[in-house]
């Protein structure tokens, strides 16, 4: 699994950091490297572009996983002197990286703002590099055992629990000009293949948003 990121338009990044001068780049060696938004290459490219715009790059680090607080604590310990000279951190990772860095920096460097140079797209299934697909939204109440392993929350444009809707034409979805498959037709075909149309015929209750509609935590120790 990879958290899929794409590059933010450079102008948008410039606009966010325009009141700063000395930048530290934190570029993730995991998912973002795979998505070619971070990693060593991404960091190098960003540093060159920022320098061309007159910014000073204080330092560049490429942590193993920016989203892991433990990794960031360790890596930041190595660059405390550079952080003293830093106006802002530009993160090339998913959104979790910004949260992780902000948490870790909170005690010693609360004055440093943390910016992001990517857009976090989704948790992705990888077909090959450059082909990533959303197949799970992490809703917290997995239905896959009843839908032939195909998620209606993700594959149905309306996240319907009882599809397909009238927007399905020849197995395609009205959203996106009938180019994408209708999630509920995929579910129907898969369950038919498995001899489980009984599951397809079932009237399903709406999603229970009392738990999944807000920020979640998994804390078991």
């Amino acid at each position: 699994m990879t958290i899929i990121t794409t590059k933010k338009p450079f102008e948008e990044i410039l606009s966010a950091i325009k009141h700063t001068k000395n930048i530290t780049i934190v570029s993730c060696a995991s998912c973002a490297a795979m998505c070619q938004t971070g990693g060593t290459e991404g960091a190098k490219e960003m540093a060159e572009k920022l320098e061309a715009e007159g910014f000073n790059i204080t330092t560049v680090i490429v942590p193993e996983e920016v989203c892991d607080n433990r990794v960031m604590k360790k890596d930041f310990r190595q660059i405390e002197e550079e952080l003293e000279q830093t106006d802002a951190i530009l993160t090339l990772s998913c959104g979790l990286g910004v949260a992780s860095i902000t948490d870790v920096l909170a005690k010693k460097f609360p004055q440093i703002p943390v910016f992001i140079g990517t857009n976090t797209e989704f948790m992705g299934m990888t077909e090959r590099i450059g082909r990533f697909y959303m197949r799970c939204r992490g809703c917290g109440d997995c239905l896959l055992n009843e839908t032939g392993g195909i998620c209606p929350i993700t594959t149905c444009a309306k996240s319907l629990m009882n599809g397909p809707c009238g927007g399905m034409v020849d197995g395609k979805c009205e959203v996106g000009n009938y180019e994408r498959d209708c999630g509920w037709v995929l579910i129907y075909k898969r369950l038919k293949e498995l001899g489980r149309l009984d599951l397809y015929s079932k009237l399903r209750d709406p999603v229970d948003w009392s738990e999944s509609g807000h920020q979640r935590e998994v804390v078991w120790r």
Partner: protein
Amino acid sequence: MAVKKVYSKLGEKIANGEFILTGELEPEKTTDLSHTIEEAREMAPYVVAANVTDSPLGIVTINSMAATHLIQKESNLECIWQLTVRDVNKLGIAGMMMGAHALGIRNVLSLTGDHTALGDMPESKPVFDLDSATLIKLVREMVDKGSINGHEIEAPPTLHVGGAANPNANPVESEILKIGRKAEAGAEFIQTQVVYDLDKTIEFLTEIKKYKVPVLLGIFPMKSYAIAKGFDEFVPGVSVPKDILSRWKSIKKDYTDKKMQKEAYDQANYEFFKPFITELRKKNLLDGIHCMAVHYPRIFPKLMEVIDNAN
């Protein structure tokens, strides 16, 4: 599900097993409903009720509950309030059911609704908290049990609730089984998408008979060649047969006199739909007709003729 209690003229006709004709009204992006009300008055002598659409194609119009109420009040024509689950969450919809009852609305058609991305406010958040089946279930709980989520409603709403079906769906089995879910949820009637293909329609109606929900078949008599062509091109999943399009095209070409042209279109509709409906009634597959030809109320007398002669 058969109608147990009667709350409206539509409910009464369904309960009595009478053949039903419903029409359709499409309020627009305006606060002025005078044209729609005029149309309602024109079709009122012929139809049991008329559907009032809810921002079709995701293009925002006047709110359908408000429009339904005002049309009923001004025209005395009973309406079927169309409600999509696109724009309001479950809590909001439950509140609307009580509001609708208080405003004199007694029929509701549960629809998914075209995605916001297709309409003129694509940046809107698509809600879809419920779907077209679970909305039916929600209404049934409120009406039959007088409760919502197990909580008692002091004076519960009384509404008949129906669902939609698409005989043109491909794969059709995925649609048929979905109608089963709507029947299980408590749908009291089904109104279908527009059909033109008789064989496909017979097959579909025969298949869904097992669910024992009265079916009003969607038809779309075409007022002009332009309308027929537009319908063929822009309504997803419905295609107007080539021979119809060419006949309508030749009417446009052959009749320069507007009055005669109108009569020719009306007659062409009559000639197409008469054998179509007669055949379906003969096979005992129809409980009624839902005529979706908006802005074409003058067709209703002819349609009544079709229905009467199809007996």
